[in-house]
């Protein structure tokens, strides 16, 4: 699992690649906690190379989403695969996130 964060003015692009399973979620948790500090801006979660997500990964997404809501920021989920779209569907995440 790799996470690359690039900043373009008020836009943070978080590039996620690999499998966001339970161990991976635990691994990136500190990084994500930092990211949540900047939830007042627009955070783009680029899922182009994300192949898998489990509930722990979804929890990270949801934590960011809640932070954004508090701070008046924006979370955009970009380029999710069909599999992940299905997971989003099952969990009602399609309604919580702005998906591009």
């Amino acid at each position, binding site marked *: 699992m790799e996470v690359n964060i690039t900043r373009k003015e008020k836009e943070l692009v978080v590039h996620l690649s690999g*499998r966001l*399973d*339970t*161990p991976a979620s*635990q691994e990136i948790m500190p990084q994500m906690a930092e990211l949540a500090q900047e939830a007042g801006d627009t955070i783009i979660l680029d899922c182009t190379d994300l192949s*898998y997500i*489990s*509930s*722990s990964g*979804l*929890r990270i997404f*949801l*934590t960011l*989403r*809640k932070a954004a*809501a508090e701070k008046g920021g924006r979370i955009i989920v970009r380029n999710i695969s*069909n*599999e992940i779209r*299905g*997971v989003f569907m*099952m*969990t*009602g995440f399609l*309604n*919580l996130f702005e998906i591009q």
Partner: protein
Amino acid sequence: MSTRHRNRKVSATTIGIMLVVVAAITLEATSLVQYYYSKRGIREEASLRAETQLESTENKIMDIIDQTEAAVRNSVWIARWCLDYPDSLASVCARIVMDNPVVMGSTVSLVPGYDRQRPLFAPYVFVKDSSLIYHTLATPEYDYPSKEWFTKPIEKDGGYWSEPYVDTGGGEVLMTTFSIPIKDEKGVTAAVLTADISLDWLTDLVGNIRVYPNANSLMISRTGRFMVSKNRELVMQKTVGEVVEQIRDNKSFIELNRAMLAGETGNMALVFQGEKSYVYYRPVERTGWSMCIVIPEDDIFGQIRRIDLLVKLFQLLGLAMLILILRSFFKNQSKYKELDQRRERMQRELQIASNIQMSMVPTVFPERTDLDMAATLVPAKEVGGDLYDFFIRDDKLFFCIGDVSGKGIPASLVMAVTRTSFRNVAARQDRPGLIVSAMNDSLSSMNENNMFVTFFCGVLDLKNGYLRFCNAGHNPPLLLTDNIRKLKVEPNLPLGIILGMDYVEQEIPFRYDDALLLYTDGLTEAENTRHEQFGEDRLRAALHGRKEAVAHLETIKQHISVFVDGAPQSDDLTMLFIHYRGEKETVPRHLTLHNDIAQISRLPGFIRSVTAERNISPELLNNLNLALEEAVSNIILYAYPKGTDGVVEIVARADRNTLVFILSDSGKEFDPTAKEEVDISAGVAERAIGGLGIHLVRSIMDSIRYERKDGKNILILTKHI
């Protein structure tokens, strides 16, 4: 009706008739013998009575006769002495009359010419109104020497009793005279001494002989003239001979007349005007009289005849009753025979029904290396309400066992319907839950007699040993793995109760050598004479050890037989034994993970290997991975206390349509299915952070079940594909 039967009936009637005839003959013979002897006795008694009467009457007559004769004879010497003084002869007569009250009159009449001075001399003394009157008989009109009383004694040279006669001198009196010749010293007959006696007493004496109510007595003189008769007109007017002449067919009367005139004693039977009488006759000595008693037969035998009639009446009544009894007996006999035949016919039909029913349950078992089966069905009556069935389709074993409420014919009919319904539905349906639901609908919709069926249906995939089943109120089967335990079943309602009911289907993987014993409660509830039940413990004991399916059932039967010890079977007893002997798994689909979260990364590979032979979509693969990860990570993270070592065992089974993952761990008891469902429609602010994992498992899998057993958490995840 068969000829044989008719013949038997005829012979029965013949026997009846013979019985009646024999009874009649016996009764009649007995009564005849009795009648004969009674009659003889009565006849003898009648004879005795008549003869005794006759004898005593004669004795009474003889008393008078003797008195009279004695009175006369005693006066002979004095009369002889007075011959020389004829005028004194009247006093001799007077003496006789006076000394003997029976003597009414007396004369000493000289033989004409004996006394030259008195050619005719006959002084006569008689009693009239208690005074003696002297009279003479020597009148030309009377001409005494020509009279019988005068001539006969001289002729006989001895005492002579005259023919009775009616004396008209002093009223009509029946008289008779005793005369005796008197001889002088030279031996010359000089006179006749007589004594007249009235025979009025004779009429009373003889007429009053009353041996029987309607008996008659009469007396005749030596000439056959009637002296005493109830018919007064005859007295002294007619002789018996004259009367007899007027009688037709008078042979016996002539004979009687002859015998009486001859002075014989005896008896004979007479028939007069169709009426039979018995006549007893006896002469009176010296007088030439004869008397007889005529007794109508009816007088003698009337009583016994009436008794005999009564006896005959009773006999007839008895015979009539005998006939009635016999008739009703034979009628009943034929009724019983008819009932017997009906029972026989029903028995035959029941036997046929039983055969039909037995032919409905399969008794030929599949000859396969992966399956060993046996079954038995023993109805308590000819037909019963238990059933089992099985067949193999598409490499799947469809089987069922059921128990219809009630017993006997109604239950057997429902059993047949149930079995047919099973075959129909299972022919095109693979899922036991749907099979049972469909059967329930069909049985409920036509269940007017409120009969229900407890039913267990299973479908065993012979390729992978995966067993789906659905229970409808039946007792849980026993599962034989490395131990024996009851299969966990949803109770559900029996079939036929609620239309449209959804039946919960369950599933369990079968491993090589696992076995299932399905049975009806007739097995565990088999009772011995002390009303104890065979019970589950004894059943488990009987199942001990591993053997062929047939041997298992035989052992159980033996155990039951020993247990009930001859007590009659009260309920149908059915068993179905299924022993799975599929191929041993060549690729072990087991995964053991330690309680380290990093182990999660082993899951994708495991799932790929499990589903390798299947053509499943990447999305499903992803989802299965996800569900499994959620379930496993829960265990790894929360089941074991931090720092302790623990494992999660995963067993996967897959057949063409289903994937099953069985997760087990020895951690603390934790039922993820009990967790409340997360609200996925909640907004961002309200949205809970946790609960997503179990939600995903629920969403992805078709069924998720938790069990806590032997200190283990067991989670069974099933996905139909």
